[in-house]
């Protein structure tokens, strides 16, 4: 199991790197597009859809990494005010419930991917629709593994004390 989790960590770390690279690329692409437009050299029309798709990839492929980093927003109002034993039970319920929900969403992502297979979104370039539905399935599959890890005690969902770490704006 340890080897499996090591491989899992490598995958979600790799995806987080992809997200960082995508963010840097998006910044560059938008600047280039505006400069080309302003200088009348002609704005490449693939940039707009490419940046939109990048947002989808960042939001979905980075989520499992963020779960391990305990970066997802959690409201700890009730959790911190109950005795430690009840807190442990609540944490187990949350991990099990989240695992079940993610597994359900993975299950329903199969017909969605199947329906999108071979279809294309006609924008400035032909984007295979499957490339837009597969990341959602991968996201929930990896999240399910992440919650399984929490449920089996190999990882934790919350910071030790106080309100859980959040990345609020």
């Amino acid at each position, binding site marked *: 199991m340890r080897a499996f989790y090591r491989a899992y960590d490598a995958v979600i770390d790799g995806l987080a790197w992809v997200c960082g690279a995508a963010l840097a690329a998006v910044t560059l692409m938008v600047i280039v597009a505006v400069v080309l437009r302003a200088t009348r050299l002609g704005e490449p029309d693939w940039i707009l859809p490419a940046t939109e798709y990048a947002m989808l990839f960042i939001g979905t492929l980075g989520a499992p990494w963020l779960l391990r980093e305990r970066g997802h927003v959690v409201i700890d109002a009730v959790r911190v005010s109950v005795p430690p034993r009840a807190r442990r039970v609540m944490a187990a319920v*949350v991990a099990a419930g*989240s695992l079940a929900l993610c597994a359900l969403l993975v299950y*329903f992502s199969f017909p969605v991917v199947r329906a999108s297979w071979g279809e294309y979104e006609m924008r400035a370039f032909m984007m295979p629709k499957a490339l837009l539905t597969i990341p959602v399935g991968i996201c929930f599959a990896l999240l399910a593994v992440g919650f399984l890890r929490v449920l089996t005690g190999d990882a934790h969902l919350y910071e030790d004390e106080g309100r859980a770490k959040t990345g609020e704006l």
Partner: protein
Amino acid sequence: MIMEWYWAAALMVGLVLALMALGFPVAIAFLGANAVGVYLFMGGWVGMEQLVGSASDSLSSFILVTVPLFILMGNLFYHSGVAVRVFDALDALFGRLPGRLCYVTVAGGTLFAALSGSAMANGAMMGSLMVPEMVRRGYQARMAIGPIIGCAGLAILIPPSALGVLLGSLAQINVGALLIAGIMPGIVLAILYAILIWTQLKMDPSAAPAYDIVRKSAGDTALLILRNIAPMGIVVFCVVGLIVLGIATPTEAAAFGVLGTIVVIALFRRLSWAVISKSLKSSVNVTVMVFFILLGSFTFSQIFAFSGATEGLIRWATGFDVSPMVIVCTMVLLLLVLGCFIDGISMILITLPVFMPLVVKLGYDPIWFGVIMLVTIEMGAISPPFGLMLYVMMGVSPPGTRFADVVRAGMPFFWCGLALIILMLTFPKIALWLPGLMGR
């Protein structure tokens, strides 16, 4: 399933709140409620496929590109340490004014609100910069912590504001106009903070004892400002200037804001791969957090509307024989109560599907109400027991500071926010004047 609108509303909102209270991540709480909602109201398991399918639609939006870019700007400033030089220059501006470091915090907080889209990055940065210096100078904890608690939240109001972009895009209102509308209220709030600090020090001068400083000549001060503050104008122009002049959309302005920030950091000789790498990592962290909540909540408002809850609630709320202003005040009160317990994004996602259609139906400007919502979110961040800014400040407060001390330090700034809301309810032009100049 056919259900009365009030049961549908209670089920959807109740489920989200119950799951959040149990400790589910906010995004998962929304996904869970959505799963139940689509099953009940949108044709059983077929609805589940729609839920998965709509996930990709929820994030593939050009306006959302603004969010990570505004966050990246704040992180670049934070990780490069350029802020220290700005605060040093501001420090020279205030001379021997009693409580000068408090005013430096207000001025610096307002300036960085215009350079960063993240209130938390601002709070952490100002806390680590200003609190040790103020404590060293004998400032009481409330005078050291309070102004930072208040001013960090200005980033939510003054553009670039990542939350402003989110609110604008979710409410489907003009994002550029909403961002520009936040400028005047942000400045008014900063002035209210300065008046509050002046009053606090009049009542208790020992709270921020005076100390001798080396006086700089007018020429030296001007040079310091020219070197350390003037370059920030590049970033402000890249974001606010390009939007106001109509040269760039908010998204394009955000990309130029990042470019401007990198240029400024390079001018200060603080640009390195380490700074860029750390900033990108922090930005990915916050962006993924925000986007995943959006993915979870995208269908929430659709299901809410589909179940008839939105229409029913609006019919019910407008059916009372009270003035529209009473309804708006009730909505503000509800937002303030929610702000004590949940974060800003969740506040927006839960209330927006009902509040915005209601505001439009009552004949008010959604931009105006959007700014009011941003102010309540800012107040929520400093409201006990779960205002996140209070916890950020606990992390940078002097040893021995109790949570109650931080809350007490922040409360007067909470009342300033309330005063701003009353001013905006009375004089909507505070928010609508600048967007009006844009020809909206």
